[in-house]
């Protein structure tokens, strides 16, 4: 049959939700009184208008993709990681601390930027793994614990950049901002090309590599099969000899670690300075990207690109055409709500066959 080569109802509904939400966004822009032409021009400028814009959008997408891949991975074991925001924050804190005070700047072989990244992965993994351990030991719902851990992490970061004893830059005068010093140049991520007008850093190839590996193990690997069994029926998986608790913790470690890596990429590839509001909703957007993907890593890449470009375009529309960035929020909200509700029709179709 040809059926399997056609896009499934899930993909069609995802695409439909996105298209409808974007159309609604355009209507909103018109209602606000901004000329659609201006808004679209600004959107194009900010997304694909220049090499720089493309690179900036892609770098955003990379962050979303990492959080999304982590979400999909943990979700295979029926674990819902909504803690991306906190994992990014922790990753940012760890990467900053190591880059500034870990004496890594002079290390050879790329260790100068790799060690802060590894520290970020470890910190994010700790934050995610904590939720995993609580889930297996105390039966704590991971949605609630990761959410609470996110709030804690965001305020931890705030504390770090407010306190002189932690990561705040030395106070030289009363106008010194509550943020860290800029990390040394050698700890910043190297660019893929030598062309500074296309600032794509090594985060992109790294993320693509991770995506390919995770996709392979989820679809064809024994790990993917075991995670799926745990997700579908943890008791039966345990009876079959699978160390379900270890896998659950590992899945959350993985999700958290990827969140931490995302934080490192944001810090070392883009912001270079840690300040309040560092994670700025990237974790929640990454969660939405993971949801949109409906369990597929390819889907994560596609929706991460969508969200990366949408966010860049939104910023550009705000600056150039005066369209409030809230419009992009609304579009995102509608997409999430529509997809959450659409599961009903997708599942119904799935069972009636």
């Amino acid at each position, binding site marked *: 049959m040809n059926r399997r080569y056609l896009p499934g109802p899930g993909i069609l509904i995802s695409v439909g939700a996105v298209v409808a939400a974007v159309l609604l966004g355009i209507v909103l822009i018109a209602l606000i009184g901004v000329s659609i032409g201006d808004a679209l021009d600004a959107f194009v400028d900010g997304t694909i208008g220049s090499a720089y814009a493309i690179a900036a959008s892609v770098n955003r997408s990379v962050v979303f993709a990492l959080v999304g891949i982590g979400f999909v991975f943990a979700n295979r074991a029926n674990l819902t990681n909504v803690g991306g925001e906190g994992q990014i924050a922790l990753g940012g804190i760890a990467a900053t601390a190591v880059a500034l005070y870990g004496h890594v700047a002079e290390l050879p072989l790329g260790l100068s930027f790799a060690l802060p990244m590894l520290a970020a992965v470890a910190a994010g993994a700790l934050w995610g793994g904590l939720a995993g351990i609580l889930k297996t030991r105390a039966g704590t719902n991971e949605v609630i614990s990761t959410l609470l851990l996110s709030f804690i992490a965001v305020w931890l970061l705030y504390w770090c950049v407010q306190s002189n004893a932690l990561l705040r830059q030395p106070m030289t005068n009363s106008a010194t901002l509550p943020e860290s010093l800029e990390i040394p140049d050698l700890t910043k991520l190297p660019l893929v090309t030598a062309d500074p007008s296309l600032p794509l850093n090594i985060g992109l190839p790294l993320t693509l590599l991770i995506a390919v590996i995770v996709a392979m193990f989820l679809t*064809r690997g024994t790990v993917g099969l075991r995670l799926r069994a745990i997700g579908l029926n943890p008791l039966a998986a345990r009876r079959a000899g699978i160390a379900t608790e270890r896998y659950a913790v590992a899945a959350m470690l993985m999700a958290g670690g990827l969140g931490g890596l995302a934080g490192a990429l944001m810090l070392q590839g883009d912001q270079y300075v840690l300040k309040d509001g560092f994670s700025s909703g990237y974790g929640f957007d990454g969660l939405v990207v993971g949801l949109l993907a409906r369990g597929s890593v390819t889907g994560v890449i596609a929706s991460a690109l969508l969200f990366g470009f949408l966010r860049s375009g939104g910023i550009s529309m705000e600056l150039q055409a005066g369209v409030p960035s809230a419009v992009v929020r609304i579009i995102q909200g509608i997409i999430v709500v529509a997809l959450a509700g659409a599961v009903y029709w997708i599942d119904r179709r799935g069972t009636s066959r």
Partner: protein
Amino acid sequence: MPDSLLTLTGVTKRFGALTALNAVSLDIAPGEIHCLLGENGAGKSTLCNVIFGIHPPDEGVMSLNGVPYRPAGPADALRLGIAMVHQHFSLVPDLTVVDNLLLGQARGILDRRACAVRVEELSAEYGLALAPFARIQDLSVGERQRVEIVKCLMRNPRLLVLDEPTAVLLPPEIAALIDVCRRVAARGCGVMLVTHKLAEIKSAATRATVLRGGKTVAVSSNPAEEIGVLVRAMIQRELGPLGHAAEAALGLSDPTPAEARAAERPHDIVAQIDGLSFLDSQGVKRLDNVTIEIGRGEIVGIAGVEGNGQSELSAILSGMLRPTGGLFSVQNTDLTGRGPHDVTAAGVGIVPEDRHAVGCVTAMSVAENMFLGRLRAFSRFGLLRRAAFHRAAADLMQRFDVRASGPGAAFSSLSGGNQQKAVLARELTLSNLAFLVAAQPTRGLDVGAVEAVYGHIREACRRGVGVLLISSELDELLAVADRIVVFYRGRIVGSCPASPAYRERIGVMMSGQPA
């Protein structure tokens, strides 16, 4: 014959390709106890659900007191005086009896005291002892069933439907339940008693209807006398004669040992259960100092009413539950408190009591279910070698006669019997199988599948595997096991050879009295 209370004419209900009910006609009169008989899967529960308004019939009509009856849901049925005690209780565990009774009945401010008085009245009237302010979670299964019955009686029903009410009860509790049914019927209410056990009909039924494959195959207005006819109608099959164990399980024939079984075998012990105890999180002793030795090629049956520690025992033996005391070893390997992985590695096969909860992942394929614990054998660099994997599964499916569209078929698409055969295939092909724990292995299976399951278990026995068979069907144990150990409240009350001669004694032991 008195006027009909509820009449069903030509009721048909289909689920997809399956015709669960095929032109069933039936009538129930006030004051009678009408037994609905049939094997598992004969359509009894579907019929109940149609009557109770859960499923609308696809064809046919129902009438209640001569008025067309077309319930849109259970609420309609209840309003019109039809009450039902379901197989699965629907009680809120952390609420009291009174609060459960008031749920859905009371409006506004709860009058718990008046309800308690009413409970006591009903208790006295029908002989249903109940403490009104006890919490459901502290009650026994039999008491919970009484709560369900009182819940129905409080509505003053005209028709009371009881779906398989005796499956969970002790013999004396069954007698008490039948007595309640009689008292209810004596007050002019119609009672429909659904069962697949025959002893109950003899003592209770005024009429009986037999369902098989969704059709009415026999009706009797004198069931006590015509029991043989009813039974044959119930189990008659197109294919071959019945196996002995299956006949015994249905009470059709007296279970006599299939082959000469030596009372005492040379005891070459494969599995040793020594003083096993288990305290649950509430501090209740679920298993108390249980000691059993299982020899090579021996089948030891565990008898007892469900909920007397059997589930805990099989959970501990399969490594899913850590005992609070005692030892368990197989072929001199200590397995006490070891996880499922180690238990399997030591050569213990497990057929879990609840197939869907523990035995398989229904949303995964047959092949995946068969080899979930043995994926390493089919992987290279952590990636699965699909072709080899499916070949091996197809081979097992053929050897164990698992009928499915292929190794990639979803496990949920298999019939109950084929699912159980697949589980057996997995457990019996452990390379070093020495000991098999089979808990309720034939529950919910049709007669053919029951025979196949016992065939495979006996075959394993001949290879020297020791078997612990846990079943709530005494007749089944008498037909299959070599020796029977009786459980009551987590303790071993006694043991005896598996011979029909001991049936009475085992029955006594099941109610807790050492014989």
